């Protein structure tokens, strides 16, 4: 009888892990809380750095995860998770019970709730949107203000909910910078005559082709980069957003009127992940993501024998890194089950 592995979370990491496990001959159950798989990738229209359509990656993930041998449970969450002599017994919210030889936790991330940064006025001022909201506009092919007009000055605020002690997130979400640059370019593609300003603390363009994208944004698209954290947003009499920021490189405070403000929401431990941590007795770190057994060579291994991590449930990661990390998790699962 083949061993049974449960993958919790049907996002990029979970789908990849499920697919790879199935390839290795395991019996796999993939549990997803939403009514469809994909997770956060469903909210993204085009992906950095090459601006390919996210559906292409989704297609690949569907292809590998929709197979015989992979049982998909959507709109399902886990209520109980117990370990009985080398096996796990799992109870879902629908009362289904199952046993598993190993578990891969792929609960992913939630986008930082931008309304928590009250000073930016998300949910209060019209036309303060998040990066995900802008993706939605891209998908619909139209960037417009709430009054239907086309914005001509757009500000992008980096590090919303990242590197911010005030919201309890000391870590860098790694991917907001490149997302901001990608979105700035896409805005310019949609509205070439618009002016786009990125307000950043540091430009962290560490991934492959990220820096090139940054350069392209400057050179080809004329995106303006202003080094300074936006301190507050207000609304002027003619409904424009007035932002205040220190232009740290000029060493002077700066005031600017914008039509639209896009908040680059950071990544946080998902609510689902927190729940699994609670019921499964899994350790989390100061950044509230799962903490792994070793930073360098144990990044898939949890404190509970038989439970493994895949993807952004351990910290911010790009899709590329997530997929690699999931494959690594599968390799750890194989090791673990072979030893048994």
């Amino acid at each position, binding site marked *: 009888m083949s061993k049974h592995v449960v993958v919790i979370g049907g996002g990029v990491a979970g789908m990849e892990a499920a697919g790879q496990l199935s390839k290795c001959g395991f019996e796999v159950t993939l549990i997803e809380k939403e009514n469809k798989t994909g997770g956060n990738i469903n909210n993204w229209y085009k992906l950095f750095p090459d601006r390919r359509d996210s559906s292409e990656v989704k297609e690949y993930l569907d292809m590998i995860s929709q197979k015989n041998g992979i049982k998909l449970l959507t709109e399902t969450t886990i209520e109980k998770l117990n370990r009985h002599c080398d096996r796990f017994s799992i109870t879902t919210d629908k009362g289904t019970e199952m046993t598993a030889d190993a578990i891969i936790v792929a609960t992913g991330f939630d986008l930082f709730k931008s309304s928590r940064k009250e000073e930016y006025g998300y949910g209060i001022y019209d036309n303060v949107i998040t990066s995900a909201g802008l993706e939605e506009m891209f998908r619909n092919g139209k960037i417009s203000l709430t009054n239907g007009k086309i914005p001509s000055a757009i500000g992008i605020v980096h590090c919303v909910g990242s590197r911010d002690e005030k919201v309890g997130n000391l870590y860098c979400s790694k991917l907001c910078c490149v997302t901001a640059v990608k979105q700035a370019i896409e805005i310019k593609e949609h509205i070439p005559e618009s002016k786009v300003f990125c307000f950043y603390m540091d430009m962290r363009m560490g991934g492959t082709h990220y820096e090139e994208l940054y350069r392209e944004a400057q050179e080809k698209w*004329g995106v303006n980069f202003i080094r300074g954290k936006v301190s507050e947003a207000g609304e002027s009499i003619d409904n424009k957003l007035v932002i205040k920021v220190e232009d740290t*490189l000029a060493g002077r*405070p*700066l005031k600017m009127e914008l039509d639209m403000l896009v908040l680059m929401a950071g990544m946080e431990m998902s609510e689902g992940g927190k729940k699994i941590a609670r019921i499964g007795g899994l350790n989390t770190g100061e950044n509230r993501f799962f903490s792994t057994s070793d930073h360098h060579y144990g990044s898939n291994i949890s404190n509970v024998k038989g439970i493994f991590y895949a993807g952004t449930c351990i910290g911010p990661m790009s899709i590329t890194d997530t997929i690699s990390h999931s494959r690594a998790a599968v390799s750890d699962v194989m090791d673990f089950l072979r030893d048994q």
Partner: protein
Amino acid sequence: MKKMEKFGFVISKGRQIDYESNDRRIAEYIYKREPSFRLCIECGGCSATCTTGNFTGFSLRELHILIKRGENDKARHDIKKCMLCGKCTLVCPRGVNTRNIVVLARQAFQNYDNYAI
């Protein structure tokens, strides 16, 4: 007026850069003729190697940002100090044509004064 000053009342000029009311024509002039002006990431390499900066507080990096923000008064004064030696161009990690930017800025200020831009 005098009365108020006797009380020690003055109204300080704000330090805030008011982006809307600032005049960025000098910057536009340079952007158009030297697109590499956009590539600056304000690393300060130019200011560090600068021959003039060796003698004064002249900073090409600061000059760039002031012009970009339309804070032209200080830039106008500072730019006179450049000797155009070109070290800044050689050290720039982003290939910004800094020398041309100085020349263009001088030109732009001259044209600006002649109401040509």
